[in-house]
């Protein structure tokens, strides 16, 4: 009896565990940011304020940091930071592969700035995974542009320079 109970319990537990996996996956799908790393996991010391980056870009010569937009391509095409390259979306495996390809020939101590601006910082599904990916690839000098609300409000509306198109 004990062995039958154990087998049944094990079966029930297995079914329950599988159900939870499915539910969890569905829940993950329904809340895109839930299963991905939050932007808030990026250490504050690695954050760059928009004003600082804009000042740097205005003063820098052609040897500035590699600037990567890791969010939406539709938004990138509307407006992006001058010299930025599209490298997203960070929340998708395909986007992370693109990111990896784009930085393949960048020195590991090279300066990289990533940004997104799709939505409020604590809701962004792209920055956290992109930042982690770059760290996992061995990059030592990665900074994240802190856009508290979105790219429109925190960059464009402030009158900072943009480029448009692909």
């Amino acid at each position, binding site marked *: 009896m004990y062995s039958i109970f154990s087998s049944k319990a094990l079966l029930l537990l297995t079914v329950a565990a599988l159900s939870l996996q499915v539910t969890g996956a569905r829940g993950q*799908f329904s809340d895109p*940011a839930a299963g991905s790393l939050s932007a808030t996991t990026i250490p504050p010391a690695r954050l760059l304020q928009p004003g600082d980056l804009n000042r740097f870009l205005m003063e820098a010569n052609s040897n500035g940091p590699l600037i990567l937009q890791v969010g*939406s391509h539709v938004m990138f095409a*509307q407006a992006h930071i001058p010299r930025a390259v599209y490298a997203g979306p960070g929340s998708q495996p395909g986007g992370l592969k693109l990111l990896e390809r784009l930085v393949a020939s960048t020195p590991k101590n090279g300066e990289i700035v990533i940004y997104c601006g799709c939505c409020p910082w604590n809701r962004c*599904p792209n920055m956290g995974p992109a930042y982690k990916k770059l760290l996992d690839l061995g990059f030592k000098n990665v900074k994240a542009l802190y856009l508290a609300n979105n790219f*429109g409000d925190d960059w464009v509306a402030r009158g900072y320079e943009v*480029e448009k198109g692909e």
Partner: protein
Amino acid sequence: MSVVRFLQIILCAGLLCSVGLRGQPQPKLVGRAAPEFVRSDLNGHEIDLKRYHGKVVILNFWATWCAPCQVELPEFEKWQERYGADGLEIIAISMDDGDSAVRMTVQRLHIDYPVLMGDAYLGEAYGGVLGLPVTFLIDREGKIVDKIKGETDLRQVESRVRSVLAK
């Protein structure tokens, strides 16, 4: 015109062309006619904004990766059912880069109102959609009466929608 003056003009024109675009505050669309568009929705039906004159339209820009958007979509579906007879029409414009995730999300959330795929052109027409969600409330004359950005108290938005419907 002297040669010097001509060269001055050419130099100025050249300098102006070489300067990157300064970001501008997004143009104020509230109070103006909603930019028109004609697009097919996910089901292949033509959606012509002009044909919505006489209706109150909620034009919602969203994306599958936008968490606050996922909260809004089913609420808007309820509003469509609740206020459709009063003349409310909801049109959703996805700013995703492809439609496969959009179709899955629309099916999962049981969204029946038209969902279109947006792009940079449409985003720019609406003042630059550079953060989500963004929702425009358009009155029966086709004028934008409100622009709602980011996460918001949907009860307040619903109250606003009711007041526009009542006019």
